[in-house]
């Protein structure tokens, strides 16, 4: 049994790590020279011994043979060995404790006590293989002095703790070898069954789909016929629709112009009706575009995409936005309070032009303080006579002096009198 360690942690040295070197305690202790012959036989070599099973089946047929191996015999053998060993140990312990007197069992028969103790030894030993840290709960037998002569009579090998450990390890190695052998056999069997190395998926799922033919010839033929007919139908439908389009084009060409327009008007009217059937946008209602990525969806999705939300109201939507303060009268209420919001409301309120009230311009704005004629626009000052320099008719000419009376003939320059 491995020595007690100073820490309280569970001792994990019973676990098998492949390739890990395990040192027997004898090698470390200073009494290695004094160790008994029995112990040295169980002395662990410094290097781990080679595994008993080879990795490569030497013969291809061996793979097949391996699958025939029955391990039960081997297991039975191992179990028998184990039992034998335990029995030997029990006997040895019994002999060792021969004559030891424990406190409680003074009056009991030696034999029964021996049995009890050996039985409890076995149990405790089994337990202790899993948790060897625990102090063995068995009562420490009181040491009895054995004289020199009696000592030498020990012919039964006494298994002390180190030997037990060695045997444990040997057993573990055996088990590991067995497992390895099993794995190799499984691999060989899989290879024999044709499983590929490169295909490590679960091929078992492929069996859901069965591709054996002629399971039911008539049904298969019927299915094939159906498929073939569908293909033919598809081809014919394509031809038909192409034909129909051509016909339609021809027909329209042959109609006269008025008839064409009549048909177009009909079409537009039907379109308008459809549009009217839809709701109207509320005042300042947010327009939710359905998105550019529409794809071929099933009917339900198409209905969802085509639903008409114009004029409908959603939660917290103010029906009459004119009651709100002007800061809140925007289309998209989510933008309130956020940075970068434009103050744009709608086109009408932002427009600076004047639409439709041109009739006001005909009347004079201010009759009293008329602008001078020169600064009136042409429309205002249109007169029958003319504009600009022609605005006034030529008035009477101022009288010249020489016209009106005699005199002053000697003046060269004609003078205008009053």
């Amino acid at each position, binding site marked *: 049994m491995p020595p007690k360690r100073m820490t309280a942690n569970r001792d994990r040295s019973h676990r098998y790590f492949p390739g890990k070197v395990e040192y027997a305690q004898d090698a470390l202790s200073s009494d290695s020279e004094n160790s008994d012959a029995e112990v040295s036989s169980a002395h662990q070599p410094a290097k781990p011994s080679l595994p008993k099973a080879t990795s490569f089946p030497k013969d291809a047929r061996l793979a097949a043979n391996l699958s025939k191996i029955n391990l039960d015999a081997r297991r039975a053998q191992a179990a028998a060995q184990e039992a034998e060993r335990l029995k030997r140990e029990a006997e040895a312990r019994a002999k060792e404790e021969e004559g030891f007197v424990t406190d409680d069992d003074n009056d009991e028969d030696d034999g029964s006590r021996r049995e009890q103790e050996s039985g409890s030894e076995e149990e405790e030993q089994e337990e202790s293989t899993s948790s060897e840290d625990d102090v063995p709960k068995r009562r420490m037998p009181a040491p009895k002095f054995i004289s020199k002569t009696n000592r030498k009579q020990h012919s039964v090998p006494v298994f002390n703790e180190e030997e037990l450990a060695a045997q444990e390890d040997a057993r573990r190695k055996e088990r590991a070898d067995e497992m390895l052998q099993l794995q190799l056999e499984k691999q060989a069997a899989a290879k024999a069954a044709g499983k590929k190395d490169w295909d490590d998926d679960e091929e078992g*799922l492929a069996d859901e789909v069965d591709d054996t033919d002629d399971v039911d010839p008539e049904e298969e033929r019927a299915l094939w016929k159906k498929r073939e007919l569908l293909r033919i139908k598809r081809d014919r439908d394509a031809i038909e629709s192409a034909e129909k389009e051509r016909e339609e084009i021809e027909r329209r060409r042959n109609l006269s112009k008025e008839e064409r327009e009549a048909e177009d008007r009909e079409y537009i009217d039907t379109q308008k009706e459809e549009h009217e059937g839809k709701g109207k946008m509320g005042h300042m209602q947010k327009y939710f575009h359905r998105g550019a990525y529409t794809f071929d969806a099933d009917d339900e999705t198409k209905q969802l995409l085509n639903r008409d939300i114009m004029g409908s109201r959603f939660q917290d939507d103010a029906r009459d936005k004119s009651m709100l303060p002007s800061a809140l009268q925007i289309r998209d209420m989510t933008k309130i309070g956020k940075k970068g919001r434009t103050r744009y409301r709608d086109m009408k309120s932002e427009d600076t032009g004047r639409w439709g009230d041109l009739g006001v311009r005909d009347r004079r704005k201010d009759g009293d303080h008329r602008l001078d004629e020169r600064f009136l626009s042409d429309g205002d000052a249109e007169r029958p006579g003319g504009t600009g320099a022609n605005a006034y008719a030529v008035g009477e000419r101022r009288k010249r002096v020489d016209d009106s009376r005699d005199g002053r003939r000697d003046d060269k320059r004609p003078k205008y009198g009053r």
Partner: protein
Amino acid sequence: MAHAADAKKALDSRGYTGSLIRGDNPLKLFEKPVRDRIIESYYWKEQCFGLNAATLLDRAIELTFIGGTYGVSQRPTPFLCLVFKMLQLTPDKEVILFYLQQEEFKYLRALAAFYIRLAWEKDAEVYETLEPYLADSRKLRRRTREGWTLTHVDEFVDDLLIKGRICATTLPKLNPRVMLEDEDKLEPRISALGEELEELDADDDGSDGEVVEVANGQANGIGQAEEDGENDAEMVAD
């Protein structure tokens, strides 16, 4: 040609001197991501090294399913790897036709059909070669991205002729059959149903709207012209 263990050099399009398909390296028919997956897969590395047409046949016989890429990591199927190998080898037409005509191995047939659709450049030839196999109704196992489905040889061939993308590859452009018929390069398709189809047509037309006087025991449509396939405009006028 020396077979390098890592055939990346052969996939390098610079300095390619082999036969061209549609003016380019045949391997370019597969997209770059798919090409990368194929080259890195175990099947390609183990099984597709140093194949020729004969050994490829051995591999193709062992196929058990068709498909493109599957799984989260886009693993290629052996089917796809073998098609890739065929594109690398570019076998002769006779070899491909031999593969296609093998009755016993349906996956080999599917392989050859896929190759034909990818590699042959004359549309009329493709149609003529593949259409007879619309009569082959054997089952095929198909591996999709998420799982397994059942399909048939004729469905697969139909997909090859109609669809644009199959088995993780975009198929090269193929003119529609109607266009080829209009150009008189092809005859209208004669379905494998043949006579049964004519009978069905006759029945349909006879019961269509018009009142037809039928003598006792005669159910055939009266006054129908003999039809050869589905391209009859008179049928449409009914």
